[in-house]
Structure formats: structure tokens, C-alpha cells
């Protein structure tokens, strides 16, 4: 009787050990229906819903070699009625600008500041001190992204293989792109490119993902280069603090 109990215990331990070993497996290369990939991409792209302060360094280099750097300090007050974002923009050649934006729950962006802070930037306008249009910052700050399987796979021959596309669930203004296709790394399953596709089916902007934060405070894209017709823009998260919103 005792030997039987011991064998049962041994089996439990073996199963426990096996489950511990298999607990941290690398992502599957192809998952059933792409559910895991969709979940991972959705988590990566959408904000956490918590207060935080993030410092982003935006380095632009135009095709004629002009280089410019600007820092964006964004403080987020998360709210189910609509997050509030305080922007402070400053660079060597860019004087301090402040901006208050509210991401509306129904979609869209409204102002929450006064005076010059009250201006809502036009999406096609360039972000101060860079060659990046405001629309990329606005959709990054207030956009809710939905990830789905791409219907364009293997139908558009001039594009690299893109299995997924992302679209804005709360599009508030007309974007200059029609869809965003995602190219995944075949080994890690991480996104490598996000391609903004225009009305003619051509790549308007390519966001090349260079670093994704998996540990530490910032879990998301930490470093990316955006290739645009006028040049390249490097965006880097250089500082992050959780729960810093309400106090400011």
C-alpha cells in the first residue's frame, strides 16, 4: 500500500517537473488560427490603461542629411471616460511646447488645455523638430488597435509576406493610409515591420521594430525606425515611470 502511495507521489512529482519545464516555451511558429499572435500583437500595440510618464527621443534625418532631435515627455492620466495626455516637446532647435490632449472614448482627440495648449494639431502637420507627421503620434497616443489576419496574404506580389494587419478601432480622422500590414519574424513571432499602405497599395511608411521591452517597466516597442519618403525617424523610449500621471 505504501509503495503504491510512493509511486503515485513519484508520478505527481514527475508531472510537476514536466509542467515546470514546459511552462516557459518559446512562441509557437504557427498557432491555431493565429490566436496567440493576435493576442500578443494586441497587447504590444495597445496602451496598458494605467497612469504613466514616458520620455521619447525622436531623431529625424531628412534625405538631404539634416538631423534633428526632439524629446517628447508624455504624462498620461488614464480614465475610462477618456485618457488625458500632457505633452512637453523640447529639443536643441525646438523651443519648449506644451500640449494637452484628451483621447475621447468615442474616438477622436479633443483639447484640454488653455491658450496655445488648446490647439489640436492637424494630422498631416509635422511634429515639432521632426519630419514625422502628427498623425503617427496621435494614433500612437489615442488609437485602439485591432489585429486581424490579413486578407492580402499572397495576393499582393510586390509586398513582402505579411500575415496580419492592424486597424484603428477608434479612427477619428482620415488617415493617409488605408491599412497597416504586419511582417512577423519567423523565429520569434515578433513584429519586424508595420507597413502603412496607401490608396494605391504602395508602402507609404515603414515602421521597423528594433527593440521590444519584455522585462522592466516599459513592455512594448522600445526602439523603432520609421522610414518615410522624406527620410528616417528614430523613436526611442528613454525613460518611463509608472503611476506618474495623477500627481501632475
Amino acid at each position, binding site marked *: 500500500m*505504501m509503495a503504491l502511495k*510512493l509511486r503515485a507521489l513519484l508520478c505527481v512529482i514527475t508531472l510537476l*517537473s514536466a509542467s515546470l519545464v514546459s511552462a516557459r516555451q518559446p512562441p509557437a511558429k504557427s498557432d491555431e488560427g493565429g490566436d496567440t499572435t493576435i493576442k500578443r500583437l494586441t497587447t504590444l500595440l495597445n496602451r496598458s490603461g494605467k497612469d504613466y510618464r514616458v520620455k521619447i527621443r525622436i531623431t529625424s534625418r531628412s534625405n538631404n542629411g539634416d538631423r534633428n*532631435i526632439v*524629446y517628447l515627455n508624455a504624462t498620461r492620466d488614464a480614465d475610462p471616460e477618456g485618457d488625458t495626455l500632457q505633452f512637453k516637446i523640447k529639443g*536643441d532647435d525646438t523651443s519648449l511646447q506644451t500640449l494637452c490632449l484628451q483621447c475621447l472614448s468615442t474616438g477622436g482627440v479633443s483639447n484640454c488645455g488653455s491658450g496655445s495648449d488648446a490647439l489640436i494639431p492637424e494630422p498631416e502637420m509635422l511634429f515639432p523638430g521632426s519630419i514625422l507627421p502628427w498623425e503617427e503620434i496621435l494614433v500612437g497616443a489615442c488609437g485602439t488597435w485591432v489585429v486581424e489576419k490579413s486578407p492580402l496574404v499572397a495576393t499582393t506580389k510586390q509586398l513582402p509576406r505579411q500575415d496580419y494587419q492592424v486597424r484603428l478601432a477608434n479612427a477619428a480622422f482620415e488617415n493617409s493610409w488605408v491599412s497597416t500590414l504586419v511582417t512577423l519574424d519567423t523565429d520569434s513571432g515578433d513584429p519586424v515591420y508595420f507597413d502603412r499602405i496607401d490608396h494605391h497599395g504602395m508602402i507609404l511608411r515603414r515602421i*521597423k521594430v*528594433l527593440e521590444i521591452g519584455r522585462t522592466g517597466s516599459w513592455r512594448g516597442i522600445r526602439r523603432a525606425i520609421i522610414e518615410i519618403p522624406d527620410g528616417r525617424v528614430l523613436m526611442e523610449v528613454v*525613460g518611463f515611470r509608472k503611476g506618474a500621471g495623477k500627481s501632475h
Partner: protein
Amino acid sequence: MSWFRQVDQYGLVSLIIDSISCRPLRALIAVLSIAVAMGGGMTMVGVSESLEATVQQGYASRQVDLMLMQANKSNPMTSRISETFVDQVRKIDGVQGAQAALIDSLLLDNDSGILVYGWPPGYQEISYRQGGEVIELQQGQVLIGRTAASLHDLTPGKTIELNLGDFEIIDFFEANSFFESGVLFMRLDDLQQLTSARETVTFIFINLDQDLTESSRWQLMEEIEAINPILKVVTTEEFLQKNQLTASVRGLGRIILVANALLSILIISTIMVLTVSERRQELAVLRAMGWSATRVSMLVLLETAVLATVAALIGGLIGLVGMKASLIYVQTLGVYSQSIVTLQQIMWLGISTVVIATIGAALPIYFTLNITTSEALRK
């Protein structure tokens, strides 16, 4: 063999060898599973210890006693303080020297990150030799460490792009430590311009007079912090404790080590309980022959200890191989470290072995103590 009989006068060793050799597969499974579990834990502990020891070697070679940085920064690399503080620090009695440096992780044109140190004019770090003459770097020029050069396939004479700015590699620099050989050195003003960090630095490295007492050292630290409320002085040990990478690897390593040690205890305990239950009659015969319960228990404890020790030795080797492989991987993230076996690692291994053997033997010993002499007569 007479010496063996003398050593093993009670026959304990012979009985242990006999027990293990009668169940070789069971012993092998126990040893290998514990060895793999301990090897995993030792890998993590080894990586954190090596990272810390390598960085520590770097500070020691620069004779850094204290580091001045921005207060309230959870990630020390994001510290930014005015470069003018360096002159104020140098004026304080007891300070032998102070060096300012701006450090940032920049993007190379091969899409990988690299640490770049910016040094002010006049520092030997931004000088190189050409035809016996010492020349200081010009704007747009960098020096490269040999590890960084081999990892990124870069050589002097090449032009590289750093955060979308163009730079020419002029020469190699002789690094003070293995960690620094994985970085680039450039002029402070170049790095400030490249990252829009005008007139700021990340750290000020401070060397103190060697004859300072502990109390005057604390007083001096307070004096330095009094220059400006934004400043925080830390010792190199405190800095390493705060470093996110080493702290997270260290923490994770200890958790894995403890979890794997618990798993090892469960494995060895189960194996030994099985062994004791199968050898009940044999152990009862020993009791009937006059062996005390303590001596029979000692037999079980020693057998557990033998298995745990063999497993620890194999686990240590697995840990060493794992540590070297992990550090090669860590290099691809831009962190350079030698694989260093420290006394602390060996202590962790030794303590784990003793703990696994002692606790793992508790349950089998409990079963052993319940064996009566009458069981020797049962079939």
C-alpha cells in the same frame, strides 16, 4: 584494501555503494535531474555574479570610489546632471580626482544597440597615438573597443551611423576592463549633440584620498550631495545593487536556484523513500544485528549526501557551461562580461548541496526510524 576496511569499519560505505550499484538507473535519474536543476540555478547566479564582477573590475581599474548621479532615478543610465558639477566636486577636500562621462545606448547602422561613452576634452580616453604623437579625437570621430569591433565587424577607417549621425572610427582604445571593451568612446560634445543632452553628463566618477576614515568618507559624501539637491552619491557596490540588469538577473537567479533546490529535495526524497521501502527487511536485519537506529539513519543520510554531492559536481559543470553560453547571448544585447567563477558561486553550490542532502534525507530517515527488528523475520 586494508586502509578501506579501517576507514569503513562499520561497513557504511560498502552498504552505500552496494545500494547505489543495485539500483543504478534510479541513482542516475536522481543525480541527473538534480544536476540539471542545480545547473540551471547556478547558470543564473553565475551570470549575475560575472556581470557584477566584470563591472567591478572596471571601476577598480579606474580607481572609482564613488559615483555622482541624478537622484530618484530607478534606471541610473537615465541620470542627467550638469557637467559643471565636476569642477565643484574637485574642489572638495578629500577628493583626489573626478571624471565626468555621458553614457547612452545608441543605434548602429546594423540595427543593433551599442553603449557610447562621451568624455570631455583633455581626457586620455579620447586620445590615440599616431606616429608616436598623442592626438585628441576631432568632431565626428570615435574610438572603438576590441570586443565591440569583433562583435559588430567594425575596424578603424570605417564610417558608421550612430542614431542617424555619421562617424568615422579612428582607432581602437585600450579598455580598462572587459565591459568597456564592448563600447565606443567619443567626444562629450559630440555625444551631447547627438542625443540633445546639452551640457549634461550621466555620472561623475570620483576618486577619494586613500587615507580617509569611514566617518570622513560619509561626511564627504554628504558634502558632495549638498552641492545640489538633484545629486545622489553612491558607492560602486550600491550602484551595482541598483543596476537593473544585474539586479534582475541576480533576483531571477536566486528564485530559480531556490525553486530548483526545492524540486531537487522532492526528487531525492522520493527516490530515497522508495529505496528505504524496498530495503526495509535489509535495514531491519542491520537493526537485529545490533545497529542503533541512529547508525541506520546515518546510512540513509550518507547515501543521500553522496547522490547530492555527485549531482552538485555535475550541476556545477552544467552551470559553468550555461554561464558561458548565457554571457555570449548577453553580449548580443550590448553587455560585455567575462565568465568569472566567484567564491560566492561555489558557496551557493555548497550550501545548496548540504540543504538538499539534509532536508531530502529527512523523510527517508523518518521511515527508517520506524523499522523494527521484528521486520527482519518477515517475508
